[in-house]
């Protein structure tokens, strides 16, 4: 089974803190994604990566950065957390090449910024 894990299920941080969300997949997938999920807005893509050290901005990259130093790991960084970044964050991975391939999701990290 494909497994995508995220470092924390719940996280509480204070405004201005630097926040790291980690995602690891064990299926040697090239593509990895970070989404933000908010009620009434669905899933919105923050960043994605198609290879080590490669990254592409998604639809809402402002206030976020990412790092992919190893193929299996994709980190989302909030340089200075703000209350409007309180949300559920979902990581996903997929195999490069076939457009048909599904994305496999992690369990999510519910981040609260106070």
């Amino acid at each position, binding site marked *: 089974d494909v497994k995508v894990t995220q470092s924390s299920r719940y996280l509480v941080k204070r405004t201005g803190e630097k926040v790291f969300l980690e995602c690891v997949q064990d299926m040697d997938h090239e*593509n990895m994604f970070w989404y933000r999920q908010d009620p009434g807005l*669905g899933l919105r893509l923050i960043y994605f990566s198609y290879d080590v050290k490669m990254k592409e901005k998604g639809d809402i990259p402002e206030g976020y950065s990412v790092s992919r130093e190893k193929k299996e790991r994709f980190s989302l960084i909030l340089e200075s957390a703000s209350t409007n970044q309180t949300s559920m964050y979902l990581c996903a991975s997929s195999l490069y090449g076939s457009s048909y391939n599904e994305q496999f999701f992690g369990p999510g990290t519910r981040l609260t910024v106070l």
Partner: protein
Amino acid sequence: AQTVTQSQPEMSVQEAETVTLSCTYDTSESDYYLFWYKQPPSRQMILVIRQEAYKQQNATENRFSVNFQKAAKSFSLKISDSQLGDAAMYFCAYRNSGGYQKVTFGIGTKLQVIP
């Protein structure tokens, strides 16, 4: 840019009955892929069913089937013989055939299954 619209924020169905969730999308592409994902409460999102735009035959996976109307840009999900475990958020998603695998999701439909 592509958009995906799910116009039913919430739906309910009696156990063992059939329910249809609606999804429409907007694209100028002719080749693309459509997906339905399921997110159970406090559990990981998983793929339910997928459809290639160039295939006219509607996809089916056990109790789940789709009604794909390419001209109308409609992609509805039918769940037959609904079970309590079907209760979840359902997301419709779209992906272009080329480029990297950027997927556009709808806002979701929350399905309640009534015993």
